[in-house]
């Protein structure tokens, strides 16, 4: 075999591998980013505008809806590539949410903006953790969300809910749409 033919074969291998990874990622990831971006947008806007117990109820409803929507996306797309990780990742998120609730309860009372930044950074840690394990996109998203939350908390704590709703929630929706459109 000539070197040129070997190069063509290696290019085909690289392309097929890249298409496969992207198809796997696109099948669920894009929609999941859109879903949770909407949850963040409405939830943080609610935290800013409603405050107190009413925003807690709003978050419970939104998390429930987000969880159901994510499960539906997972069931519709998960059959394409069967993985041993699916349930572990879902378990990790459930454990993280439960522990965040527990930690907030232990640390209560906290000022509202401190609660917002605490929860945001903890959820961002989930992105970083899963990202280190499975996907660089999740890793970088988690790091960006962490930086965004800390920056907003330091620069404009009184408007932190708006800051995270528009930049964090909006960013997640934008990233989801980008993945759905670009990863073809």
């Amino acid at each position: 075999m000539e070197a040129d033919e070997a190069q063509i074969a290696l290019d085909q291998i690289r392309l097929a591998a890249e298409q496969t990874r992207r198809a796997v990622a696109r099948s669920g990831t894009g929609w999941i980013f859109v879903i949770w971006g909407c949850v963040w947008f409405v939830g943080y806007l609610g935290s800013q505008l409603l405050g107190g117990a009413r925003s807690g109820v709003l978050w419970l409803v939104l998390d429930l809806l987000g969880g159901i929507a994510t499960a539906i996306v997972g069931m519709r797309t998960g059959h394409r590539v069967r993985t041993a990780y699916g349930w572990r990742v879902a378990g990790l998120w459930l454990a993280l949410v439960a522990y965040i609730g527990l930690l907030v309860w232990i640390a209560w009372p906290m000022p509202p903006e401190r609660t917002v930044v605490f929860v945001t950074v903890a959820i961002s840690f989930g992105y970083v953790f899963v990202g280190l394990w499975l996907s660089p996109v999740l890793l970088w998203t988690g790091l960006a969300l962490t930086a965004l939350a800390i920056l907003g908390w330091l620069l404009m704590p009184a408007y932190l809910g708006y800051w995270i709703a528009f930049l964090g929630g909006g960013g997640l929706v934008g990233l989801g749409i980008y993945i759905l459109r670009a990863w073809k």
Partner: protein
Amino acid sequence: MADLDPVIHQPVRLRIMASLASLHETEAAEFTFLRDLLGLTDGNLGAHVRKLEEEGYLSIEKAFVQRKPRTYIALSDKGRKAFKGHVSALETILKGKD
């Protein structure tokens, strides 16, 4: 130095192997996912999958998911090793050019 594997070398089978090798060892691709991804027909993909399975390069599992029959395809240990050897042989040929 590893030799080129004539079974893997066929272009469609090369793409099938590359696609499956890019998945994690615990993952398996559904038949229609692979068919759509590689732009093949059922018959074409089926024939190449059979050939690779005969060589012991693939493990195939049939399952019912949401009451629909699905065929899951993954690289076997032998297939993963053979694919690595084939890639290594291609890289050696390429290096020989320099």
